[in-house]
């Protein structure tokens, strides 16, 4: 127990310290984790052999990440990506693998070893790239999408590669390997299917994928609805984790990549009302596991071997990354990626990745590569992963600024579609949402009442289940990028919390807030809301207008009278705000009371029958001159 606590302490401490420092220096979290790993592993020897086991465990973070990426991707978007996915992704694996094989043969490595190493190294690091792109907000860019297509295709291509590797077994290695277990990553899991004929295996695989799609569409929503109704947050979190793990398990059982399966499940759930809630529940687990994964990558660098073979490892790493970048750049050109996006694509996925680790251990077990070669390749992969954050910094500081200057000039005049979050979908929020949507804006609407969300979805309103006063949920709804936040809930303490948090996170955000009364207006104003609307003020004014009309007043005069009243009232509110105190009831606040008397004097006079001042203002501008004009 103590041992475990100590390990956990070391890992967490390293993560917190290194990531904070890295972030402060603007290096991104991934580099921080990697450095933390190097420090606690090879440098200080605080952690030992358990890193390998931990790594297998931490790789589950990648599975979770793909689930989250899937959640962000509508099925339609995925379908629209198909050319890129197959074309860009397929060509990347084939061409990179091919070129690396030829290079290997050219320097005298046997063709089969070259080929295995080539394809192992053609894989990139989903974990590093997606994490970094997400951090920089580049996932949705053209370059980011292309990176993602390639990574997703690599995920798929691992399966055939795993199938081919055992065929290349070298007799002289089999002898030395026969003692050790022959199982591998995927083959072990799919052992129970090995006796079946091909068509049966295919059938089971297709059925499993079909099950994920169908169950995701039809079963998951009633399931989550029941859980949401229980209002127990941790049960919802547990259910989210259960879903991810169940799918991963199913995929492993039929010999498919768990990451691919959960990605698919994510896409299926992307349209569901539980999307943002799931995102914010899974996100911290994914973050921690990925962090742990990066640390283990850093910790597993074998420094003794690295110093011994430094020139070879360095040359190999440079050659691999340069080849990958060159191939990617060429593909980017072919697929018409422009400017900064092409560079992002070329440098972004130029590293080797964690699939390489899996494939390497499998090649050793399958007697395809000698352990000495695998150890060197392992170093190359780890090193190239560690260099990736450095490349991103280079991209940020040197390459992207060059293109941005050009793009800045030709920015178009059409106002871009604003990202708008609406918290609360009661009578108030619904009207707001309808008007915004009718004007062509995409809104993210949140409400914590699952039945209401469900009902409105049936009527075609894009809404999501979740408690908007939870910071993490606001984040997954896009708080950072949002332009406008409408707080339309009637629960004032929660509304205040939302406004305060949102203001802290996004200083340029325009916050429109719903208030019940004047005191709410003051509170919301102090919390940082931009526009504050008293919920029944405007409707009362309209009702007053009808009443005035009924007395026989001319409709245009009614309108003017209403306007003058509203102007007075709002100006008064602005003047009263600084005098209002949370701790003193307004009637016991002499300054406040005095100001109220002073400001509303004119209006009250008018109401009491002394109508001079109020009428002056109403008739201003339409008073006929006392002498003829131009005389």
């Amino acid at each position, binding site marked *: 127990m103590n041992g475990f606590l100590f390990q956990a302490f070391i890992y967490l401490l390293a993560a917190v310290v290194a990531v904070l420092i890295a972030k402060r220096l603007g290096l991104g979290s991934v580099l921080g984790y990697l450095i933390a790993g190097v420090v606690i592993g090879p440098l200080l020897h605080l952690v030992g052999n358990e890193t390998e086991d931990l790594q297998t465990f931490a790789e589950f973070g990648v599975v979770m990440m793909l689930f989250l990426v899937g959640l962000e991707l509508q099925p339609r978007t995925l379908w629209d990506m198909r050319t890129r996915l197959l074309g860009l992704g397929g060509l990347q694996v084939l061409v990179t693998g091919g070129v690396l094989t030829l290079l290997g043969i050219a320097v005298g490595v046997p063709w089969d070893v070259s080929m295995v190493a080539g394809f192992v190294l053609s894989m990139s690091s989903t974990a590093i790239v997606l994490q970094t792109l997400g951090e920089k907000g580049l996932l949705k860019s053209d370059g980011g999408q292309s990176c993602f297509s390639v990574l997703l295709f690599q995920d798929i291509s691992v399966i055939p590669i795993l199938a081919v590797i055992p065929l290349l077994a070298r007799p002289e290695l089999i002898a030395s390997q026969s003692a050790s277990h022959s199982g591998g990553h995927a083959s072990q899991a799919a052992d129970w299917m090995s006796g079946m004929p091909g068509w049966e295996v295919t059938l089971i695989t297709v059925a499993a994928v079909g099950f994920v799609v169908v169950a995701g569409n039809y079963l998951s929503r009633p399931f989550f609805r029941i859980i949401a109704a229980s209002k127990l947050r941790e049960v919802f979190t547990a259910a989210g984790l259960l879903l991810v793990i169940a799918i991963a398990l199913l995929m492993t059982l039929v010999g498919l990549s768990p990451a691919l399966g959960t990605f698919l499940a994510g896409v299926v759930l992307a349209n569901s009302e539980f999307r943002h809630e799931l995102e914010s529940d899974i996100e911290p687990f994914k973050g921690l596991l990925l962090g742990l994964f990066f640390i283990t990558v850093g910790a597993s660098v074998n420094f003794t071997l690295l110093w011994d073979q430094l020139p070879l490892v360095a040359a190999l790493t440079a050659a691999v990354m340069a080849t990958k970048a060159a191939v990617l750049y060429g593909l980017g050109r072919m697929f018409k990626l422009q400017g900064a996006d092409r560079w992002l694509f070329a440098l972004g996925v130029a590293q080797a990745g964690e699939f390489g680790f899996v494939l390497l251990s499998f090649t050793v077990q399958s007697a395809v590569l000698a352990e000495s070669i695998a150890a060197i390749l392992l170093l190359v992969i780890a090193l190239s992963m560690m260099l990736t954050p450095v490349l991103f910094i280079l991209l940020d500081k040197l390459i992207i600024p060059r293109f941005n200057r050009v793009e800045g000039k030709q920015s178009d005049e059409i106002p871009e579609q604003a990202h708008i979050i609406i918290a609360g979908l009661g009578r108030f929020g619904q009207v707001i949402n309808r008007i915004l949507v009718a004007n062509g804006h995409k809104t993210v609407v949140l409400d914590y009442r699952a039945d209401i969300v469900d009902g409105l979805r049936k009527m075609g309103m894009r809404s999501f289940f979740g408690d908007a006063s939870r910071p993490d949920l606001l984040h997954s709804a896009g708080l950072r990028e949002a332009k406008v936040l409408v707080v339309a809930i009637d629960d004032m303490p929660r509304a205040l919390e939302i406004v305060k948090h949102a203001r802290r996170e996004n200083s340029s955000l325009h916050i429109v807030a719903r208030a019940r009364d004047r005191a709410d207006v003051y509170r919301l104003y102090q919390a940082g809301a931009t526009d504050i609307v008293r919920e029944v003020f405007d409707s009362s004014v309209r009702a007053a207008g009808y009443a005035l009309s009924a007395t026989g007043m001319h409709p245009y005069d009614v309108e003017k009278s209403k306007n003058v009243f509203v102007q007075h009232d709002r100006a008064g509110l602005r003047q009263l705000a600084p005098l209002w105190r949370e701790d003193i009831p307004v009637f016991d606040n002499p300054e406040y009371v005095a100001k109220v008397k002073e400001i509303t004097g004119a209006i009250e006079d008018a109401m009491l029958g002394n109508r001079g001042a109020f009428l002056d203002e109403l008739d201003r501008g339409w008073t006929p001159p006392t002498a003829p004009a*131009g005389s």
Partner: protein
Amino acid sequence: MSRVLVLFAHPGQRHSRVNLAMAKAASSVADVTFADLYAEYPTFGIDIDIEQKRLLAHDTVVFQFPLYWYSTPSLLKEWQDLVLEYGFSYGPGGDKLQGKKFLAVVTAGGRPAAYDADVNRMHGLRTLLSPLQRSVEVCGMTFLPPFVLFGAIDANSDGRAPRHILAYRSLLEALRDDRLDPAIPSRENFLDYSHIPMGKEMEA
């Protein structure tokens, strides 16, 4: 140095072909105050006090608007009705605008012929704008020859729009720096992008 105020009135800015670009140019001229009236008063609740204070703080007033039924858009008319108050700009004590200059910057959809006094004796553009001119003169201001773009509907396709916008910018700068030929009010009928007479010191 003259303090210039541009009051821009255009209710259909989404469909604007030239005016919006002109407004952008005007708002970027240094030391010129630019106001989009439809943005400030979307519900026509014009604040008379603020508007009058704004007039007092400037020496030259520019109305920039598309010609709607041979007149200003309705908010600009409302603005005149409310702000040019008895006792402020005319009548007893109504001398607050005396000596200021006024320029109408007009875009017209029709071709020049549609507003040509020779073709249509009664309805040349200067005649059509005469209510505006008369109002300005009653307020004691100098009515400068309007700066006009005819045929604004296809000014973008035949390349006149950029020249007009550029000329508008230099016209505002000239007004700001008092470089406009002082004799033009009596001499010129219209100003346009090919014709903005400058004062003597500029020609030298």
